[in-house]
């Protein structure tokens, strides 16, 4: 949901305005800094790599400290440092009491954050449990377990 | 084969009226035989605007109730309406040339309003053709239907003001002729028969849209 012609700073600032964020300037800077986008904050988004654009999207989504976050494959396009930054961010949000629904194929990352985990097949939940009962070790084991014979 | 009463009656009524207009109604003194197009032109115009009024009304109610049948009704009325509007726009110049000496009369407020009605009908249909999702299509068509209804009075007013400020040099622009009873009766008969015809077309077009949507639904289910 980024505007290609505008810079990351402008995109995040616009989102801050939409949500009526107080101390907008400071929050925008903080959000950009969390995703390590401060040094490219003034280049137009279209000039950034896919991974950086993804970081800006995340910064934009978080600037207003939402109470509920729907994250659909947020790790896609992120390099290692970006992924780490995202995990830290999600962890902070979780500690602050934000509800997070995370859809991911990156099982290890996802499970490290989650309180509960679910496996979906064809639009239905085939497994739903608390996170510590869901083993990250083998995705295929999990898959077979959950899907069973069906 | 079951013979439906409405199209039969409507068809018979229109034929009867045309015959009456052509052979059993007196010629108008100044305008002569060309004036008889009047008995096609006026009822077609009446139906064109009636059809659009119904499109706008159905659009409004659709936006309130979201019943897709209202959208089908509006769609049907629009397609029937555009045909009658085209008839008005063809018979108008055919009548105007011998009588007023010009094919088109920009100062004739009703004719120009009908032209814009035609434009709105056509853009309504193009809009519908460009949207695949039935619910989005219904909503957008309804918005256009209502906005179009708001536009027509403004067109009417603009052309009226235009004509009062620019008196056109026309040969023998007629004032409203007073109609003797014979002609009035023919006119009323033609209004009635055209209205019946409209409802006959509307009904069969509506049925077609019901069948078409039902067929599309089964195709979707199979997919």
């Amino acid at each position, binding site marked *: 949901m980024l505007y290609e012609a505008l810079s990351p700073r*402008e995109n995040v600032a*616009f989102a801050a305005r*939409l949500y009526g964020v107080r101390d907008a300037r400071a929050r925008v800077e903080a959000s950009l800094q969390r995703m390590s986008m401060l040094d490219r904050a003034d280049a137009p988004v279209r000039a950034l790599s896919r991974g950086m654009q993804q970081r800006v999207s995340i910064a934009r989504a978080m600037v207003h400290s939402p109470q509920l976050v729907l994250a659909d494959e947020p790790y896609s396009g992120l390099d290692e440092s970006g992924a780490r930054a995202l995990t830290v961010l999600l962890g902070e949000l979780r500690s602050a009491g934000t509800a997070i629904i995370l859809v991911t194929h990156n099982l290890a990352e996802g499970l490290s954050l989650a309180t509960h985990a679910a496996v979906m097949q064809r639009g239905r939940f085939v497994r739903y449990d608390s996170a510590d009962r869901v083993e990250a070790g083998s995705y295929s084991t999990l898959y077979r377990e959950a899907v069973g014979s069906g | 084969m079951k013979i439906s009463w409405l199209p039969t009656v409507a068809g018979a009524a229109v034929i009867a009226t045309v015959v009456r207009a052509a052979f059993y109604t007196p010629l108008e003194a100044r305008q002569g035989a060309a004036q008889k197009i009047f008995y096609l032109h006026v009822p077609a115009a009446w139906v064109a605007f009636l059809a659009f009024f119904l499109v706008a009304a159905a659009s409004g109610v659709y936006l309130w109730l979201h019943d897709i049948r209202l959208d089908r009704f509006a769609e049907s009325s629009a397609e029937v309406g555009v045909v009658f509007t085209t008839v008005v726009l063809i018979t108008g110049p055919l009548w105007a040339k011998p009588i007023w000496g010009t094919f088109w009369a920009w100062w004739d407020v009703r004719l120009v309003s009908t032209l814009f009605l035609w434009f709105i009908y056509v*853009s309504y249909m193009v809009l519908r053709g460009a949207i695949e999702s039935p619910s989005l299509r219904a909503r957008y068509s309804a918005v256009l239907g209502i906005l179009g209804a*708001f536009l027509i009075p403004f067109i009417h*007013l603009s052309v009226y003001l235009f004509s009062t400020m620019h008196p056109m040099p026309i040969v023998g622009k007629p004032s409203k002729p007073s109609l003797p009873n014979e002609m009035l009766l023919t006119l009323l008969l033609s209004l009635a028969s055209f209205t019946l015809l409209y409802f006959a077309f509307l009904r069969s077009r509506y049925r077609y849209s019901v069948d078409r949507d039902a067929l599309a639904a089964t195709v979707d289910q199979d997919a």
Partner: protein
Amino acid sequence: MGNTLSAAWSIARKDLAIEFRTRSAFFSAVIFALLGLVIFYFAWDPTAVSVTDLAPGVLWVIFTFSGLLGLHRSFGVESEDHAIDGLLASPISREAIFVGKAIANLIFVAAVQLVAIPALVVFYNLPLGRVAAPLIAIAVLAAIGLVAIGTLFSAMAVNTRLAELLLPMLSLPFFVPIVIAASQSTAKLLSGRPVAEVSAWLKLLVAFDIVFVAACTLAYPLTVDD
């Protein structure tokens, strides 16, 4: 209400920032307007039709078509990266989104006119004088109507298959009363008639604006594709 306006203004600022960054639509519209002025001049026999008679029609026809160039990108800019979803998910009301975009379009149209009208005066050697103030009033009223209709149809067209075709096709019938009123009143004023004589046209423009600004603002939420 104040909330809506400030939200609308945020959106308008954002749209203008994007346009300012690329400037492509603005330049296209300006060049189009200037070329139009030139072409129309050569299309007429200057001895048969005086330039003062030609100018009003040319001005307002070009106004409409160059306006369309700007209107098209109004919602076009939201379709990249599904940016419109970001707006819709935010606490801002749908009406505010519409008003914001309409304001941005209004400023766009005004900016193009700031170039086109002086160009018209120069190319067509028009005796502006006292006419300047009423002309500006007409331009403002015409622009408001144009932008209300155009912004709404831009929002709709962008969700259809034939966006570039549909925007002009839907909008132009609605622009006609504006063009008639604006041209006729400009012509009267340029030929020295007093403002009182064009009051009927001005009232028509005001009524048109009131009706369609209200109708389009109310209709916009219905056109959101969610």
